[in-house]
């Protein structure tokens, strides 16, 4: 099979119409060059969560047992917060920000008057969200290191893992945005991300859920948390391939929906 034929099988056909999605990223870079404060402030929230765990919960809780080994609580939660930050950042970028450009500033209408295609727009915006997210992930790892929360050098692998998490949630978020009617629809996003944040084995081990733990498997964030946590604790397992597959699958579904809908939405 030629590589193009293989590509045709895995990439949603519509997205092959993309020619230069990187131009959308270029535009974001141009914007953030004078709005760097906005870029920097995006890292503030995850940092606060991390600090609150370090300052508050650590002394309340002390140690947790995970996979039979005892860990400092902050060291246990920090990687999960890193995964959650990747999710939140990506979703925020792909929903609110994209909606603004779609309905209000009409940026995409402008872009489509050029040789760029609707697929360029979709893929480009997802790439933008992922790029921005990776910057935050790197900053997060550095902060964890400074706070003494890094357990293993394998933590550097958490950065690509967060790219994958960001990609998955950006694609799904983007797909959701194509269905958004008004700003108040953003409430639904909160209604999904908060439970994901709280119930993805983020703040306590899966065992705490007892008989309910099977539900947690349905949280895509959980699969991200498992990988990132594994990286920080220095334990990589084959089963993580399964976790990665879940995230890849989610990305694919999100892309597919986005690609299907974006043409009809932008080209009326």
């Amino acid at each position, binding site marked *: 099979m030629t590589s193009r034929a293989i590509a045709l099988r895995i990439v949603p056909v519509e997205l092959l119409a993309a*020619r*230069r999605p990187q*131009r959308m990223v*270029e*535009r974001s870079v*141009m*914007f953030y060059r*004078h*709005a760097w404060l906005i870029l920097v402030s995006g890292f503030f929230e995850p940092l606060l969560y991390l600090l609150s765990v370090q300052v508050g919960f650590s002394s309340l809780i002390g140690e947790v047992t995970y996979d039979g080994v005892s860990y400092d609580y902050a060291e246990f939660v920090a990687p999960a917060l890193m995964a959650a930050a990747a999710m939140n950042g990506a979703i925020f970028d792909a929903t609110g920000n994209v909606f603004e450009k779609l309905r209000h*500033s*009409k*940026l995409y*209408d*402008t*872009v*489509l*008057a*050029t*040789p*760029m*295609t609707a697929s360029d727009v979709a893929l480009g915006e997802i790439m933008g969200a992922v790029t921005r997210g990776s910057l935050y992930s790197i900053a997060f790892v550095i902060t964890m290191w400074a706070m003494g929360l890094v357990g293993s050098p394998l933590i550097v692998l958490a950065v690509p893992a967060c790219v994958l998490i960001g990609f998955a949630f950006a694609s799904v978020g983007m797909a959701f945005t194509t269905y958004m009617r008004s700003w108040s629809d953003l409430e639904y996003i909160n209604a999904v991300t908060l439970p994901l944040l709280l119930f993805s084995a983020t703040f306590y081990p899966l065992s705490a859920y007892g008989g309910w733990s099977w539900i947690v498997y349905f949280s895509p964030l959980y699969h991200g948390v498992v990988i990132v946590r594994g990286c920080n604790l220095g334990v990589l397992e084959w089963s993580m391939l399964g976790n990665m597959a879940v995230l890849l699958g989610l990305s694919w579904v999100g892309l597919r929906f986005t690609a299907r809908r974006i043409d009809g939405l*932008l*080209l*009326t």
Partner: protein
Amino acid sequence: MSDAVIIASDLRKQFDNFVAVDGIDFEVRPGESFGFLGPNGAGKTSTMRMIGCVSPITSGSLTVFGLDPNVDGSEIRSRMGVVPQSDQLDPELTVAENLLIYGRYFDISRSECRRRTVELLDFVQLSDRANDQVDPLSGGMKRRLTIARSLINEPELLLLDEPTTGLDPQARHVLWDRLYRLKQRGVTLVLTTHYMDEAEQLCDRLVVMDEGRIAAEGSPRNLIDRYSTREVLELRFAIGENDANAATLEGIGERCELLPDRILIYDDDGEEALGEVHRRGVDPVASLVRRSSLEDVFLRLTGRALVD
């Protein structure tokens, strides 16, 4: 084989069950300046968007540069410049950046984009605002920036949807001059407008659209000859007396048009018609004889005054 830049035949556009463009035929030849006139909602923008390959056609056929918008949309758009009805500038970027990034969408190299940006900002007299945000610009400045933006890829075909709406008279004349120069360089212009003087100034040929159909086609001069008389007599009456007087004026001239604020009488000899008005004992508050213009053609064809 025709060398026309745009060929549309039986072109239709339907939104859900509303027909915006209802089977129109036209051709635009290279280097020509072609206009769409018509009242609000006539389907001008819908047509322009189909030509711009951002709106799939419902039925009929359309080729631009001999290519099919459905298949080669990207290729067509790369050779075309578009000034949309609403500016749609990027509010998050500065004036210069708006042009730079727009050029990048065309895959023009960064240094070339920079060079053209400087040149175009000068062309539309915005050089001193290059590093400002676009939001605080005045409406006319935004319009000029949009026009500059449409030229960044040195297009062969320029689509202008109401290019001078919102401009002050001086800015309009500057813009007409710029468009005229582009035309001299061989750029094909397609534009819509609500200003008849603009259409007379800029268009070699134009069509009048109404309710999604083409009501007439020709050069401005030709349309006036065909659809109007040589002269027009305009009469104004005191408020509320229009209707009563209209009945008395019946039969004067070739045709009579009753507008909310005045009565127009079409006749090749306006003075002669005015004489007849007086003979019938009608005494208007004000009267004026003038040459026919496109405005009269528009009125005749669409039954509507220009300003709704």
